[in-house]
Structure formats: structure tokens, C-alpha cells
């Protein structure tokens, strides 16, 4: 759908251009061909020998007439994928050819907008950029929203909760001229702010509390990352530090427990339990499992911080953006030393240093011991394989027998167990023979070294744990730490069976402002630290553009760039490029990376404070409101619906932080069972804020899912909003909503006005009072919680 409507916009846009000025290769032709032709016609892989990304190549086919011939006709031969070019697009190319197919690029390809250097900072106001564009389009801004509307808007925006009637009244009664600014500052100082905005961040990084896939086991230590994000926002951690800490907080700020916990970012995504824990070392599928696991980390990192789709270069060079396949595998090499596992950390810096020292010793000891252990583990011969098969056979049959009842099966069980014991002993003898007698004393010595370090570690106070990226952890089944970074090869067509040259840790080469080369090192932490510094660099123009656009999107309902995690050629172009750049520079230089200052700037702008009312004349011209002639009306997101309902019912439990709240009945099994229907909304934890819910990847809460809460396995830079019958049923019938309506009624003690105030911030109407009188306040509460008035924010 996005692509269909983008095409409409693009078509209208090009028509406008065609009328206004001569066709430019640089401005008009190149982007069109980049979007529609360069997938197949790119350098190094040019179908039919035509390169669509250089002016030389394009001029050749333009002058021969081939360009227009293949794109037109009843069934155009090109493009092979997607719809034919629109008449407006064809007309544009025809005009360019007719004008002599001039190349105005000056012989060099201009940098894509998102990669260009940022301008010098300059005095301006946010509103001036918006108003200029409106003036250019002969549009005017809307009048300010009334204070009652504004106060609800800014509360929901900054806290994810509507104001209480008392909070609304206090604001309306505040005589100070800067009452609104005071309110915004007060909201930003509240911990509710971090809870609300951390939820946005967790969408972007696809945070979840279980692994996903088959055997979707809970992650008991994922939550410290969630809490660290909330805390970082509430403390207004400067953005560059926030970025760096998530990639390498353990290396760059090792004694800051909050920075350490932020490394939970590395492990936020799904994890294939079976692939890691049950597949044998060295098998193709094991290698594939690891490849895809690192792919998830690379994709999450690059789309989150720099809004680039580097993951599109796994099988081939990026088809649209200047990201060669080697860059992608260099990024994989950055993460080649870690797996997702629990890592200990301490609040006390002295203790932290002590533990770090011991863990380094332990890693060194394990590195010495591991080759010896491997010698034993991987010792093999035909006779050993035969025994392995028999041992496994016994295991399978025993598993299948379970706990037998009848005598024959009991006898069979005994027989199998005896056979297995004998086979194991025989196997051991064979292995001993292969590895030689000197191995075992060496192993014993290595184990003693480890035990000595372990004893010292055990003497330390119990640490905290965060599920993060770890180079070392205790082995479980076939899931074992790398100890040193695993070699990463550039894979032909992304296939683990076709390894090419070795990759070396590095970043993207497409940013002229920054070096993509990292120092060569076998210490995995240094690799991550190098990437963290690259991402957090003041010269990384992508980082700054990306974050201001994200913050803009959450405030205004749409980003200046409508594809917040894709600033490449397949993404959208900024609606207000100068404003985006100005904001990026302002945020970096003036605000010093303070997100709270950025929020303050945005929500106190006149643009934000406009009314959201429809204006037929303006809508005719800019129905999407891309130019912001009014404020966008938004629907409460899933978490806000739930939290606002709890608040109105007087039940919202504001306890912060800690282990995720399991709002389901849990039964561990081969694949654990998560039963939401069996959960009582009044059970302990049932009334905590939604950000503290336990997020199951394989089985999301159906109620939240129906309100467009995203699948926690999907990177979600922007939520979709749907309005469906199934959603209506959830709002109307779900046990949580039905129960909260009852609590609301109890709280209102017979007063429908009070009840309506809590839900909608207004007194009850005559109809509503009559209905309540006839059917009870609880029934009225149920109705009001289902209104558009409750669900939408003007």
C-alpha cells in the first residue's frame, strides 16, 4: 500500500515539475531510474549491458531511442518488476530526451541527500521552515488548538496517558503566560515520560522477553535493558552516549551499570534456540544459524541508528544504495565474537572492576583449556560413530518409553540403560586411545585454573544479569562461546556453503565524512567499541538526521522522512529537507544531544500547537497533511489504550521497573504455552503500565495485537493503525476492558458525570445518564471506553 500511494505522490510531483522547469538529469531522471531500473541495471551486474546509474549509460540508451521504446507501449517491456512507469514519468523522460538528454551532474554523481554533509548551524525557528513551505503552496497554518485539546495532546504524547480531570483543570487555571512551557517541562521531568518514549525505542529495536522460533523460552534477564532505556531517557542521557552504550557500553563505560545494561540492545531480537543449542558444531545449519543471528544484529544496528538498510547487502551489493557486500560482512565481523547470553554486571564500580579482572582471567584460562576439551569432544573413528548411533538409539527409545508401567517395557528400559552404559564405557576407551594419555592431566590442570578463578568469582556478591552480547558464557548443550571472534567470510550469494575472502571489521564506506576502516583486532569488544564510536561520531550525519526524524515522527504522527529506518533510495525523500538538517545540527550542537530539549523545541512550536481540525480547502491541496497545515489526529496506540483505561479506572499501578509482568498463564513445555485468556486482570502485576508486560514473540497478547501492537520479532520504526471488526470486538468484549469498566463504575460511586470526566474529560450527556440509570454505570463505562472520543487524540 505504501508503494501504491507513493507512486501517486511521485506521479503528481513529477507533473508539477514538468510544468515548472526544464528536466534535469540530476534532479529528475537519475532518481527515477535509480528507483525503477537500477536493481537489474547496476554496475558489475548490468542486464543487457545497460548501467542505469551513470549518465553515460543512460545517455547511450536515451539517444538510441531504446529507453523510451522499452518503457512504453501497450505492454511495456520494462521495468520487469512492478507496474509500468506512469504516463507522467514517461512524459518526463521523453521531455528530457527531447531537450537533448543533457547531463547536468557535472560528471560526478551527487551524494544521496541523507549522506550529504550537514550545513553549519544557523539561527532559525522550526516554525519558519514549516511556514515557508505552506506559503509556497498558498496554504496557511491552522489556528492554535484550544487549551483543553492541547493539554490532552501533550499528555498523551509525552506520557502515553491522558491528563486526569484535576491535571486538566490545573493547566486551564494556570494564569502564567508560559503555563504551557511549564507544563511541558513538568511532563518531561516525570518518570512517565521515560516509560512512554522507551516504548517507541523498543519498537525500533524489536525488543522481546522470549526467544521466538520453536521452543520460545522466556528470557529472564532481558528486562534490565528495557529499564536502562527508560532510565536513560528519564536522565536525559546525551544521545551519542545512548548510542555508544547500546553497542559497546560494557567496553566504553564498563563501570557504569546503566551503560552496561544498555548493551541489551545487542540481544534484543529473536534467537533460534534449537539452531544454537541443539545443532552440532561445524554443520551447515549451525553456520546458517549463526549467520542469521549476526544478520539480525547488523540489521537492527544499522536501521536503528543510521536508518540504512545494510542488511539488503547480504547476498549481493545493495541494489539501490552505495553499500557493497563487503561492507555488510565487515559489519558482521564487528559482532563475530558475541552470542546472545546473560552477562553479569555490578552497581558498585569497585566491585565491577574486580569482576571484570576475574572474568578476563577466566576467559584466558578457558582459551587455554578449550583446545584440549575439543580434542576429546571431536575425537572420532568409524567405531566411535557406530557407538554414537547405538547410544543415541537407546536415548531415543528411552525417551519414547517415558516411565513405563507394564513389565515388558520396564524390562526393555533396563536393557536399554544397561546397553547404553556399556557403550559409553567402550566409547570412552576408544576416545582415550585417540587423544593420548597426556591430554587428561592437561585438562585437569586447565580445569583447576578455571576452578580457582571461579572460586574467587563465587566469593563476590551476587551480580545483576542482563541478556546481552557475550564473548564468554557457560556452555549449554551445543551452544558454546566463541572465546575469540569467529572468522567471517564474504559469502557468495549469502550462502554459507560459498565462503569468499575474509571480512575485516569495519563500517559503511558511503559516508564521506567518516572513515569506515577499523583497527585490526582479535578482541571483540574493541571491534564493537570502534563501531559504537563510528555511530556516535558528530560527523556521522546519518545518526543525527535519523534521530531527529524519529522524534519528529512520534510527536507529529508522521516523520519529515516517512521511512524512518530507511534513508536510502527506496525510502522516502524528506518533505522539509532544510528543516531536517537544521534540526539535526541544532540537536547535535545547541542541544548537545539532549532529547528533552528536542522534545521541548518540538512540542512548544506553533506547528505542534495547531488545531487538528479538518479544512476542506487545504485538504484538497494536501490531503496527507505533509506540509502540516494542521496537527495530525492520532489514535491511541495499544499501550496507551490499556494504560489510559487503567488510569480512568483508578487502577493504574505505577510501580517502575523489574522483571517483566507475565499477563498470561505460563506452562513450560517443549514449546512453552502462554495462555492469555486464563489471566485475571486483577491479578498481581495485571495493572502495571504496558511497557512492563512480558512480550512473548511467538504468542503476542491477542488484545494488544488487535490494537496494532507490533509483532516483537519485526523491526517496527512506525506502527500501522487499523480499525477492524476484530479490534472492535476486543475493545468491547475483552476481559480486561470489561473488568475495568466495572472498576470505573465502582470508583464513580453512582455519579455518571464523574465517570465521564475520568474517561473523556467532560460531563455525561443526557443520553449517557439515562443509559446508566437503566443499565448501570458499569455498562456506561464500557460504552465510553469504546468511543472515538476516548480513542482518538485531536
Amino acid at each position, binding site marked *: *500500500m*505504501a508503494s501504491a*500511494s507513493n507512486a501517486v505522490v511521485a506521479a*503528481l510531483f513529477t507533473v508539477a515539475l514538468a510544468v515548472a522547469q526544464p528536466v534535469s538529469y540530476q534532479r529528475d531522471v537519475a532518481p527515477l531510474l535509480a528507483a525503477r531500473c537500477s536493481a537489474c541495471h547496476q554496475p558489475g551486474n548490468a542486464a543487457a549491458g545497460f548501467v542505469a546509474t551513470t549518465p553515460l549509460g543512460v545517455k547511450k540508451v536515451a539517444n538510441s531511442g531504446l529507453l523510451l521504446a522499452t518503457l512504453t507501449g501497450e505492454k511495456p517491456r520494462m521495468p520487469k518488476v*512492478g*507496474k509500468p512507469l506512469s504516463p507522467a514519468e514517461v512524459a518526463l523522460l521523453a521531455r528530457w530526451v527531447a531537450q537533448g538528454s543533457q547531463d547536468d551532474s557535472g560528471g560526478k554523481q551527487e551524494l544521496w541527500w541523507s549522506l550529504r554533509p550537514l550545513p553549519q548551524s544557523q539561527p532559525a525557528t522550526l516554525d519558519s521552515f514549516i511556514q515557508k513551505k505552506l506559503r509556497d503552496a498558498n496554504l496557511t497554518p491552522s489556528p492554535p488548538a484550544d487549551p483543553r485539546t492541547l493539554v490532552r495532546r501533550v499528555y498523551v504524547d509525552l506520557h502515553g496517558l491522558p491528563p486526569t480531570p484535576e491535571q486538566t483543570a490545573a493547566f486551564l487555571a494556570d494564569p502564567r503566560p508560559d503555563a504551557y512551557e511549564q507544563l511541558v517541562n513538568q511532563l518531561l521531568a516525570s518518570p512517565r515520560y521515560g516509560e512512554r518514549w522507551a516504548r517507541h525505542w523498543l519498537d525500533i529495536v*524489536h525488543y522481546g522477553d522470549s526467544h521466538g*522460533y*520453536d*521452543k*520460545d523460552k522466556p528470557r529472564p534477564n532481558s528486562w534490565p535493558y528495557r529499564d536502562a532505556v527508560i532510565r536513560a531517557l528519564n536522565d536525559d542521557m546525551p544521545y551519542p552516549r545512548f548510542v555508544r552504550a547500546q553497542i559497546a557500553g560494557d567496553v566504553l563505560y564498563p563501570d557504569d551499570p546503566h551503560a552496561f545494561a544498555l548493551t541489551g540492545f545487542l540481544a534484543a531480537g529473536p534467537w*533460534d*534456540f*534449537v*539452531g544454537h543449542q541443539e545443532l552440532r558444531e561445524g554443520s551447515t*545449519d549451525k553456520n*546458517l544459524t549463526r549467520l542469521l543471528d549476526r544478520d539480525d544484529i547488523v540489521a537492527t544496528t544499522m536501521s536503528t541508528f543510521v536508518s540504512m538498510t545494510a542488511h*539488503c547487502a547480504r547476498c549481493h551489493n545493495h541494489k539501490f544504495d552505495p553499500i557493497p557486500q563487503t561492507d555488510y560482512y565487515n559489519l558482521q565481523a564487528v559482532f563475530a565474537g558475541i552470542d546472545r547470553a546473560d552477562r553479569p554486571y555490578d552497581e558498585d564500580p569497585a566491585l565491577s572492576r574486580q569482576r571484570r579482572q576475574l572474568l578476563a582471567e577466566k576467559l584466558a584460562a578457558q582459551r587455554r583449556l578449550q583446545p584440549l576439551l575439543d580434542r576429546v569432544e571431536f575425537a572420532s573413528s568409524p567405531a566411535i560413530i557406530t557407538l554414537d548411533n547405538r547410544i*543415541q*538409539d537407546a536415548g*531415543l*527409545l528411552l*525417551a*519414547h518409553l*517415558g516411565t513405563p508401567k507394564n513389565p515388558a517395557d520396564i524390562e526393555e528400559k533396563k536393557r536399554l540403560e544397561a546397553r547404553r552404559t556399556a557403550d559409553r564405557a567402550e566409547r570412552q576407551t576408544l576416545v582415550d586411545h585417540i587423544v593420548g594419555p597426556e591430554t587428561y592431566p592437561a585438562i585437569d590442570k586447565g580445569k583447576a585454573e578455571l576452578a580457582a578463578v571461579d572460586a574467587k568469582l563465587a566469593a563476590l556478591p551476587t551480580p545483576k544479569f542482563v541478556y546481552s552480547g557475550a564473548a564468554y558464557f557457560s556452555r549449554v548443550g551445543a551452544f558454546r562461546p566463541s572465546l575469540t571472534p569467529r572468522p567471517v567470510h564474504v559469502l557468495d550469494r549469502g550462502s554459507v556453503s560459498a565462503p569468499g575472502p575474509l571480512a575485516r571489521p569495519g563500517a559503511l564506506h558511503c559516508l564521506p565524512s567518516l572513515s569506515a576502516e577499523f583497527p585490526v583486532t582479535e578482541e571483540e569488544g574493541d571491534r564493537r567499541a570502534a563501531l559504537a564510536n563510528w555511530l556516535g561520531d558528530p560527523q556521522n550525519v546519518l545518526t543525527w538526521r535519523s534521530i531527529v526524524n524519529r522524534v519528529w515522527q512520534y510527536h507529529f504522527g508522521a516523520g519529515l522522512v516517512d*521511512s524512518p*529506518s530507511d534513508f536510502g533510495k*527506496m*525510502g522516502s525523500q524528506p518533505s522539509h529537507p532544510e528543516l531536517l538538517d537544521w534540526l539535526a545540527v541544532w540537536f547535535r550542537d545547541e542541544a548537545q544531544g539532549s532529547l528533552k530539549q528536542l522534545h521541548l523545541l518540538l512540542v512548544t512550536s506553533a506547528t505542534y500547537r495547531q488545531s487538528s481540525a*479538518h*479544512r*476542506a480547502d487545504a485538504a*484538497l491541496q494536501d*490531503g496527507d497533511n505533509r506540509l502540516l497545515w494542521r496537527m495530525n489526529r492520532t489514535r491511541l496506540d495499544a499501550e496507551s489504550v490499556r494504560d489510559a483505561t487503567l488510569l480512568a479506572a483508578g487502577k493504574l499501578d505505577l510501580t517502575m521497573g523489574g522483571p517483566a509482568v507475565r499477563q498470561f498463564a505460563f506452562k513450560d513445555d*517443549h*514449546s512453552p504455552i502462554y495462555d492469555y485468556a486464563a489471566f485475571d486482570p486483577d491479578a498481581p502485576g495485571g495493572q502495571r503500565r504496558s511497557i512492563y508486560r512480558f512480550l512473548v*514473540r*511467538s*504468542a503476542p497478547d491477542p488484545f494488544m495485537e*488487535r490494537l496494532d501492537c507490533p*509483532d516483537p520479532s519485526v523491526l517496527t520504526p512506525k506502527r*500501522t493503525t*487499523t*480499525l477492524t471488526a*476484530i*479490534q*472492535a*470486538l476486543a475493545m*468491547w*468484549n475483552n476481559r480486561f476492558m*470489561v473488568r475495568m469498566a466495572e472498576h470505573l463504575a465502582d470508583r464513580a460511586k453512582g455519579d455518571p458525570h464523574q465517570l465521564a470526566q475520568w474517561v473523556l474529560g467532560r460531563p455525561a450527556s443526557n*443520553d*449517557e445518564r439515562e443509559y446508566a440509570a437503566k*443499565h448501570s454505570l*458499569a*455498562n456506561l463505562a*464500557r460504552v465510553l471506553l469504546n*468511543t*472515538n472520543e476516548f480513542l*482518538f487524540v485531536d
Partner: protein
Amino acid sequence: MQRRNFLSSFGGLALAQMLGQERDGLHHKPRAKRIIQIFLSGAASQCDTFDYKPRLIEKAGQPWDPGEKVELFQSNPGVVMPSPWAWKQYGQSGKWVSDLFPAMAQCVDDMAFVHSLQSKSNIHGPATFMQNTGFILPGFPSAGSWVSYALGTLNENLPKFVVLPDRRGVPPNGPGNWSAGFLPAAHQATTVRVGTPHPIYDLEAPSDAKYITMSSEREGLALLDKVNRSHLQTHAGDSRLEARIASYQMAAKLQLSAPDVLGIAGESPATRKLYGLDDPITAEMAERCLVARRLVERGVRFVQIWSGADNGFPRRNWDSHENLAKDHGEMGTAMDKPVAGLLRDLKSRGLLEDTIVHWTTEFGRMPCSQGSLGRDHNPAGFTTWLAGGGFKGGVSYGATDEWSYKAIEKPVYCYDIHATMLHLLGIDHQRLTYRNNGIDRRLTDVHGNVISDLIA
């Protein structure tokens, strides 16, 4: 621009509706309108069902040597293991079918078999994702969601995509298998737990909410409508507000139609017998197959029936590592008659003409033994069949080697099966796209060929 505002407001509208092409398919004239997919969770064996290889009988018990190193999921290759079931030929086509499926065997002339299917993973989780979504990773939309997104509804009173899980539990990956991924939530599956007291989540208020009565419900919805309409008066020009008002009317219709479609009491004794409802061994699968027919009959686009739950013990799906004769035997017997009954019933009602029935699994099993009685995973070659909706009957496409180990003739992936099913639904799989995270995503990723040999 107005149009775009309208479209983006709904977010859940099908492409066909957006493009005004619903009647003629999305891209070309369709042969089929709907799909029933039967998914055998845990990996059903090809060489014990439809992929007949006399070589396994000849070489029974001998060391298995396919001439290359074989990497198995759990084990090292054991000896050649013939199927515990005998084989017979059936129908005009003379198709060989094992004695595990005597009833389905009677329908072979309506089935198009693909024997050369491969998977990119030999792990249940990723491979089950792949058969459902085309990707071995979580987070991608399932085929049912794509069809919902592409074609929209045939009956506004019912959901477009319905999943009927096995009563013993959900398969590996859980509901992630039928996720809408990044598609709008309107294309999520509706799970129907057939035979339980509350088959559809939130279809009615909890029965212990005593304050809700028939009249409070009815008048409450009327009041809600009135309040929302008066709100609309002061909030003109926003189609979302109207869409939400309409969603409550559609919800009410869904409430009314659901009991009717799920209630099988009115089915004739002959029909009940045909599906095996009268036999406790087949009754559970029979009920779901019958409900599937009732759903597609009333316009549901995509119904997915699961045979089997997760891979745990005691075995409750097709993952027969330990004792294939016992575990495949129980699973197979429970599904044989119901699935055959479904095919016959659809055919006699004329529904098979434009309904695709797809029988599939995440990968196959090895022709050699694992331990003494089981079989390990085999992603290199396995069998799926399709029937109705424009598929040829009585044909077999592609082949594995002499062992039923590797697809050697016309190997295909799920991309090709999906492309072919979409083609018959009037959809060009290369043009059914949705932009996510920088890529125009497809059900068929960057692969897929329509297998024209399968199309009647």
C-alpha cells in the same frame, strides 16, 4: 490526494479493493477463490506416504550410502529403512500410496503431487516459518495474511484468514506461523479453537461479567453509535472515525454469523460419516475439516488446518525420530479419512472447482533409520500435494533420487508452490509487494516460478 488519505486511513484494505479489481483477481482472471491448507506439523515423511521407492524395500537393513556425506539434524545415517506400510497403486493415474492413507489414496486422481520440494532449513522452527511465510526467520507475513492483503473479503461478516490449530496445542513457533508480520493488523489470522466453549477470542463478553445483559449490550451498542456519530459532527473530514463506527457494525455481524458457521449439528449423517466424525480416532480432525468446508463455503479466503502440535513428548505431531510406525501411524490414521472426506465433500458440492486444497509439511524424513525405528529430518526432498482450484488431478511433478532422499528432478521450493497458488488466485507473485525496512517484500522473496505443469 483525497484518495490517498482515504486509503491510508483504513490501513487494512485489500489491494484488490484499493485498485477496484476485486471481481477479476488482483492481476489476472483467477481460477481459484480460496485455499484450505492442511499443515502437518513436525515433518511428515514422504517415503512412508506418497513417494514410493522400491529400492528401500530391496536394500532394507543394509548400510545406506547415497554416495556423499550426509549431514543430519541429530544423528548419523543408519541403515536403509523401508516403510512399515505396504504400497499399492490407485486410481486412473496408478499412483502408489502407502497403506497409511487408504482413504486419501482414493482421491489421487484429484491430486497434483510435487515430490521435489526442498527446504532451506532442517530445523523445525525456521523450516515451518519458511513453508508459511517464505522466510526462515520470524516476523514475516504468512501466506494467509498475504492472500487477505491481496484479495480482501468475500463475506464481510467473517474473517478472511482463519486458523484451526490442533486441539493438542500449537505447532513450533506458535501463532508466529500465522502472523501478519509487517502487514496491517487487519490481515491477522483469526484463530478458531473448534470444539471448545469459546472458539473465537473476545467474540462475546466473559460470561462472569454479570452486569452485561442482552439489553444493556444492544442498547449500549446503540448508544455507542450515537455518541460516535455526534462526535463525528464536530470532527468532519476524517474517514477513520467513520471506519471505526462501521467496525462495530461488522463486529455485530461477525458475532451473529460465527455460531452458524461453526455449528455442525445440522450436517447430515452421511456427511458426518464421510469425514469420520463418528469415529473417536478421526473425530477431532474430522470436525475441523468440516468446519473448514463451512468457512470457505461462506467466503473465508484462507483456512489453515494444523495436524499436530509441537515437537514434545509424548509425541503429538509428525516428528517421528524414535518410532515412526507408531507415531506416524497414529497421526496418519487420525487425518486420512477426514481429509479424504473434505476433498470428496468439496467436490460433490462443486466447491473444489475454485478451492485449492494444499497438503504440506515443513520438510521430509530420511530414508535411513534413526536409531532402530525412527527417521531424522530431511530437507533435501519431500512431498506436498495440491488439489482443486485449477490444479491438475492425477499428476506427479518432480522426483527424488532412488532413495527418496534428494530432489533430483525439477527441484522446487515453497516459493514455487506459493507462486503457483497465487497465480491461480489471480495474483502475480512478483507484483504482490509490501514495503518493509527498505525492501519491497514478497511472499516469494526474490524467487518463485509458477509451475505451469501443475495447472489444468
